[in-house]
């Protein structure tokens, strides 16, 4: 193997070692089917291998990988599923070991409200609540400005609260939602 290839391989190994855990978590949290998670995981790291020169150094690499995984997931959801032979073993183990949780009571209501959000709002809230990313980090994943993230999160929280309220058990829908308090 040429010295350049060896160096490239070393860089990929370091990237994979540092980030395969967070990426596996990210894709599992966003797939109903653990087999899909295995394929998305494989395709995400395959992309990073092929585009290693574009991967930023340091902790930003994780955000870059989330961005790639997000696009691979979007393609999966659009029906462009690729069963990767690379992921055979991972697929088998995840299929045996993982079932997405089923919620009851209040948690089920929260999960249902969350599912009713548009995909981009779900992703914003999940990056904040599940991956624990701050606005600047979310901006890197989504390729927009930090302030854009902040505003979009504001709208997402508003929509989530409305979804939760509209389906509150035993209550009828309120006719007029937000009041403008200090503005009135």
């Amino acid at each position, binding site marked *: 193997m040429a010295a350049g290839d060896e160096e490239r391989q070393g860089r990929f190994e370091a990237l994979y070692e540092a980030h395969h*855990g967070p990426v596996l978590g990210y894709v599992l949290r966003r797939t109903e089917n653990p087999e899909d998670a295995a394929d998305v995981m494989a395709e995400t790291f395959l992309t990073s291998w092929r585009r290693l020169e*574009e991967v930023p150094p340091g902790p930003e690499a994780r955000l870059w990988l989330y961005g790639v995984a997000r696009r691979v997931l979007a393609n999966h959801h659009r029906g462009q599923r690729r069963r990767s032979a*690379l992921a055979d073993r991972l697929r088998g183990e995840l299929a045996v070991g993982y079932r997405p*949780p089923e919620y009851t009571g209040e*948690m089920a209501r*929260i999960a249902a409200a969350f599912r009713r959000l548009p995909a981009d709002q779900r992703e914003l809230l999940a990056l904040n609540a599940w991956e624990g990313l701050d606005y600047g980090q979310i901006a890197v994943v989504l390729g927009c400005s930090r302030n854009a993230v902040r505003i979009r999160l504001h709208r997402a929280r508003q929509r989530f609260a409305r979804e939760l309220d509209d389906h509150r058990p035993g209550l009828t829908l309120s006719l007029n939602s937000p009041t403008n308090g*200090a*503005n009135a």
Partner: protein
Amino acid sequence: MNQTIDQIGMINPVTDEEAARLVRPETLDDLGWQISATPATTGPRRSRARILTRKGARRRLLLGVPMAVALATALAVAMVGRPAGSPPAGGQQALSFTTNAGGGITVIVRNPLADPGVYRAEFAAHHLDIILQLRPVSPSIVGTVFYMSGPSTGPQIVPITAKGKCEVPSGGDDCPVGVKIPADFRGEAEVDFGRAARPGEKYVSTGSAFAPGEAMHGMNIKGETVAQVLSRLRARHLTVADFNKVESNGDENVHQVPGDWYVYDAEPWAPGQVMLFVGATVTEPSAGAPQPAQGAPTPSPTG
């Protein structure tokens, strides 16, 4: 931390640590090894999965791009008050397609009021999987592309712009009129460009609230209290749709705030409406990340 993020943290399906325990380390090592054994194309590739620029104004929702796609003359103005989805005048098509010498296609928007479904169908009739949308945006970025996506590799769609073809409140005149599709374009693409919002319609993307053409153009609110700003907004017949309470561990939406709080910034919300960024301290706290998942939920101040 705010209640919404706490609630969503509660339905986190699986943590990174739990995920790692589901799979044997050898399996993950094996995957990494197999990937690096595949041929890699070295050298940087052009990746245009998303094209979003950062220009100028703070607090942009998605961002106007000076280049752009698809907007015919005076689209911004014509858009207001007319229903989307109205049929093309005189039975014309919404888009016109011209095949270029090299085999590529030039697409010009003939009816900027058409439903996105109509555009999509016309693209599909030319065997193209392209989504074109006109969405309500704040005045200073009307007529710009604010979102564009395409295949991660290969030839990309190119927006066509023309000088002086439209009038937008910001005074910009580099207007989108259509797109060029290379002969060997493969895959799908989406282009979203901004149109003027109708009364009551929320903006999908915004420029700075203080930019020319925007509701708060020319206002300086630095260091002012909520009460002071509300009074100045009333003078302009503007209302506040919502407040964004800025906190160091994550922002929160609130509908009512004390008049002696401070305003840090503002954001266009809908025609005649803005959103204010506020807090109890004169200096804006720097907002950070929530502590993921755990922590007792705090009660919402608005109930």
